[in-house]
């Protein structure tokens, strides 16, 4: 038992609280320092991590013993890179926010820090109740971040966001409680520990509806068609650094939880819904892609592209096959790593077009901003899963996993790869190429945004060179977490546990 994960978990919150008592100007630097410290900690963890060594740096204490709820944290191959993504993403977003004009900065940065703690907690929790707490806790800071510091029709945006996610959260809360209670053997003690729950058996019929409730919550968060109603309004109004985190990191918590909670604990329920979820995923891929290139607003292009990308991830998870799950997990990381710089670049572009985010008014920026154009190009190519990027390995593993058992769905999903090329190149050309739009005043990317975006692009390139860094570290735990459902669906001979 170590304290490391508790330090990582509460460090952001501590700096946020500290910032609240510091002079107005200093809060942002305190929080930024906190995110950097978390990142440093996580980098050390990345290299200390023992591949295939199961849960590491475990913290496991009683919290509410009467209800069988434990404060239990741990990191294994399944969440190592989710934690890393969170730590990596928060630094540039906080940095960009720190250099922007904000009202009530102390509150803003407190919320930003709290959000990081909540997301880290959701990723590291090894107790279902603890996961639910952190999952719901994420909602709070984002409610304020969107509602108070958003732009445009932010009330509507916040309302939509809250209705959807709150509904999802309540369903999940009910599902979690039901799961804990129904899993308790007669005479046994109730427990929400994930390890315990995996050992216990839940009746098939119960599994079906519990999985559905979880899935609704996670699909809202992802988002997946048709539960993405909150997306357009929220994406339009949220400020750029917050949106980058919302789209890049928060969207992964739900899909991650499928691998961590749903598949290992309720394989029968997951198997029951497999067909439907795969269809939803494939439809999201096509629908999101087509809508993405029908949009004029730059943010909405990325919003619908996220729906398509998350569709790929869900497809990989519900392929119930080792490569598919591996690809899905890797793609969660990759999508986060490209989405954050993409949104930051959108922010940079908008500043150079007097706030306009309409493709009709943009264009021709590459000429005076070659560095911006190059960074954008690399990120855009990675987003469309250009071979040679980590995203390609993620996507090819997802597709290979899907082909194994669901060849037709996989082939339909492949069309999404071509559509991704259409909307990403269109986005790149619409902003960087062609003649300069009327409102465009082309300038090179500023130092702050460069410092935020360039390291992320460097990571994207590095993962393209050596994707096995991630694949190797995640393989064993991913395979184990889907082992039960694989055995159930008859894919057992395909995925061999090392």
């Amino acid at each position, binding site marked *: *038992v170590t*304290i490391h994960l*508790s330090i990582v978990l*509460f460090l952001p919150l501590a700096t946020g*609280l500290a910032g609240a008592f510091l002079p107005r100007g200093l809060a942002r630097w305190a929080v930024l320092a906190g995110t950097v410290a978390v990142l440093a900690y996580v980098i050390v963890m990345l290299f200390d991590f023992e591949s295939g060594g199961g849960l590491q740096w475990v913290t496991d*204490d009683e*919290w509410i013993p009467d209800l069988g709820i434990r*404060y239990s944290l741990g990191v294994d191959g399944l969440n190592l890179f989710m934690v890393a993504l969170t730590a990596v993403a928060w630094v540039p977003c906080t940095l960009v926010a720190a250099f922007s004009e904000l009202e009530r900065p102390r509150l803003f940065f407190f919320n930003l820090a*709290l959000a990081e*703690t909540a997301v880290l907690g959701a990723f590291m929790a090894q107790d279902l109740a603890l996961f639910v707490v952190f999952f719901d*806790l994420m909602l*709070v800071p984002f*409610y304020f971040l969107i*509602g108070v510091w958003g732009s445009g029709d932010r009330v509507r945006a*916040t*309302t*939509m966001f*809250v*209705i959807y996610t709150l509904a999802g959260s309540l369903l999940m809360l009910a599902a979690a409680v039901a799961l804990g209670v129904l899993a308790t053997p007669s005479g046994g003690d109730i427990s929400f520990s994930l390890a315990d729950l995996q050992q216990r058996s839940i009746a098939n019929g119960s599994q079906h509806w519990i999985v559905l409730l979880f899935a609704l919550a996670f699909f809202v968060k992802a988002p997946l*068609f*048709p*539960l993405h*109603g909150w997306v*357009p309004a929220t994406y339009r109004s949220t400020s750029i650094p917050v949106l980058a985190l919302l789209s890049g990191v928060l969207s992964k918590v739900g899909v991650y939880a499928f691998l961590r909670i749903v598949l290992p604990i309720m394989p029968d329920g997951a198997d029951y819904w497999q067909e439907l979820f795969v269809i939803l995923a494939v439809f999201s891929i096509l629908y999101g892609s*087509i*809508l993405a*290139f*029908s949009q004029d607003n730059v943010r909405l292009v990325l919003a619908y592209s996220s729906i398509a990308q998350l569709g790929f991830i869900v497809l990989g998870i519900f392929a119930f096959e*080792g*490569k598919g799950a*591996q690809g899905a997990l890797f793609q969660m990381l990759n999508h986060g790593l490209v989405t954050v710089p993409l949104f930051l670049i959108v922010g940079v572009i908008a500043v150079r077009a007097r706030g306009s985010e309409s493709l009709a008014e943009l264009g*021709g920026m590459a000429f005076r901003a070659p560095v911006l154009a*190059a960074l954008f190009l690399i990120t855009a190519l990675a987003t*469309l899963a*250009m*071979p*040679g990027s980590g995203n390609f*390995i993620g996507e090819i*593993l997802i*597709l*290979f996993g899907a*082909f*194994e058992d669901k060849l037709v769905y996989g*082939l339909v999903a*492949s069309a999404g*790869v*071509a559509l991704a090329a259409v909307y990403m*190149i*269109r986005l790149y*050309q619409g902003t960087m*190429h*062609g003649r300069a739009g009327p409102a465009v005043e082309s300038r090179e990317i500023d130092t702050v945004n460069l410092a935020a975006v360039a390291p992320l692009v460097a990571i994207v390139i590095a993962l393209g060179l*050596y*994707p*096995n860094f991630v*694949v*190797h570290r995640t393989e064993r735990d991913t*395979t184990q977490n889907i082992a039960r459902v694989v055995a159930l669906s008859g894919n057992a001979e*395909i995925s*061999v546990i090392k």
Partner: protein
Amino acid sequence: VSATSYGWLVLAFPLAGTLIVALGWRVLPGRVPGWIATSAIFLAFLSAIGALFDLLDQPEEERQLVDSAWTYAATGDFKADLAILVDPLSLFMCLVVTGVSFLIHLYSVAYMGGDRGYARYFAYLNFFVFSMLVLVLAANFVILIIGWAFVGAASYLLISYWYRRDTAVKAGIKAFVINVIGDIGLVVAAFLILDQVGSLDFLPVFDQAGDAFARNDGTLVAACLLLLVGAFAKSAQLPLHTWLPDAMEGPTPVSALIHAATMVTAGVYLIARMHPLFELAPTAADVGAIIGCATLLFAGTVALAVTDLKRVIAYSTISQIGYMVMGVSVAAYGAGLFHLMTHAFFKALLFMGAGSVIGAMAGIQNMDRMGGFRRAMPFTFITFTIGALALAGFPLTSGFFSKDEILAFTLNRGGGYAVLGVLGYVGAALTAFYAFRMVFRVFFGDAVPEARELEGGHIAHGEPVNPMTGESEDTEVGFPGPEHHVAERSWPMKAAMGPLALLAIVGGYLAVPGVSDVIEKFLEPTFADSRFHDTAPSDGAEWVGLIVGGVISILGIGAAWWVYLRKPGTATRLRERFAPVHTFLVNKWYFDELYDALFVRPVTSFGSFGRRVIETDFVQGTIVGGATGIVRVGTSIARSIQTGYLRAYALLLLAGVAGLTLYFLVNSS
């Protein structure tokens, strides 16, 4: 130093060139980026020669060397190393690619002078060569697909190089998307092969394919057809050819390098590389042969009617690759690759000559406006004519030997293949005609004002306009550069065209039936396993084919001479007489319009349907607000935000978290 070490060096130099030019764009002065990039390719060429000598030292059966740098990705049965395969085939491709690329870089040093994007151009060009070398050196499907896609991206970047032109931007996305369709073909094919054979590495796959698949096994045929999708997309074969003519939006040396000499031949390389699979799936190979034949005829007819100089050469390229695809699909691997090489020489040369003429025309590409450049540009005239002769397969030029070897082999297979061979000769007649249609229209006849101006000693300067649309250029950005360059006045262009002109003639002597068979011998270790290894036509039969081909070529050139020089005006009369045919050809058989109606418009209209109807009525309407109950829940929650319930909830949570923190900070130590 082993052959594989040289192989890595072949990759390292262009990559280093890319990085140096790309990162040093702000500080490298004048033409320095051009020279750095050119030397990088030259060093890669030298490394390829080093690898060649090393490989020739090995005994024949050990001339397939694999070297891995690191495990690229491995999970379950999916395992791919970052590995290269150095064998005669990959080395042959490396030599052609680096050799021709070097000359085209050299040409570009002068040709692109005065363009504001000079460094960007050379960074892209080096990156292209690097990607192409990754493609040909790849030892497994994953690295192959990476090289394959990188090449597509480099091509995209160079097509859209003058990105302020609307036409260049549109051509770029078209090329990119069609190339991605090809990539998907390769990905699915790789899956089928992994699934059935259990490996992604070429050599094990080829070894075990015979055990894993029965002849014409359904899965294998599907895999090979998917490989063909990739090959057709990259090599601009029917029906995925539409991007290549538009790709002429790129600078002319790019057309020479990527869209004629190297990248578009990748499909030919792919079929040759995968020949153990195609020979097990003869149905797929036949599809390749038929499509190749159809493409060579189709593109030949379009080249008769199009008037844009570069697009004539582009359709000629599509047609010539048709020959190569047909060749490697009927198992004439040596012949197909031989034609790939000679075509690289003469087609690069033709594009360079065209670039020189376009320079003299101050950017105008329409042949209707050209004429009489013979005296003004003697060097360009002679080299271009040599290129055209080789393209037409004129006796004793390189194209004469290589094209006819493919046709001889095809005829020799007998049966239905004989029909393909005969159609190939029909295509050869078309080729000779349109090749000299260019020569006669550009260099003969009355001198146009631009030609007279050049004879007077200076290069014409027109208003900068987009040659496709006539729109005036966006001159603010300084590219395309204000300067125009002709070979007569810049030595690097001459230095590039001279050797190519020589190679366009003597390149053919590497494989003269009964005299020399250097290419066949060298490639032998790669293709020794072919079932058709001993079915090559006899030297006598090949010479009969050569004589027939030579006669056809001379007749075709003669016909062009008759139509354009002897009886000028014949072309106009023919055009009027066969107006519907001409319209059909000028519109390139209406492929663009067809795809627009079949794919582009349905998808875009679904997009707007989705935006207007599904998003608003269904997602927002039915799901958000359709059921009044949900609406009421929504509004009450919205009201609770106003009245502060949610804030209280949030604060409560916060307090909880704070308490927790405190508790565990105290407890967990």
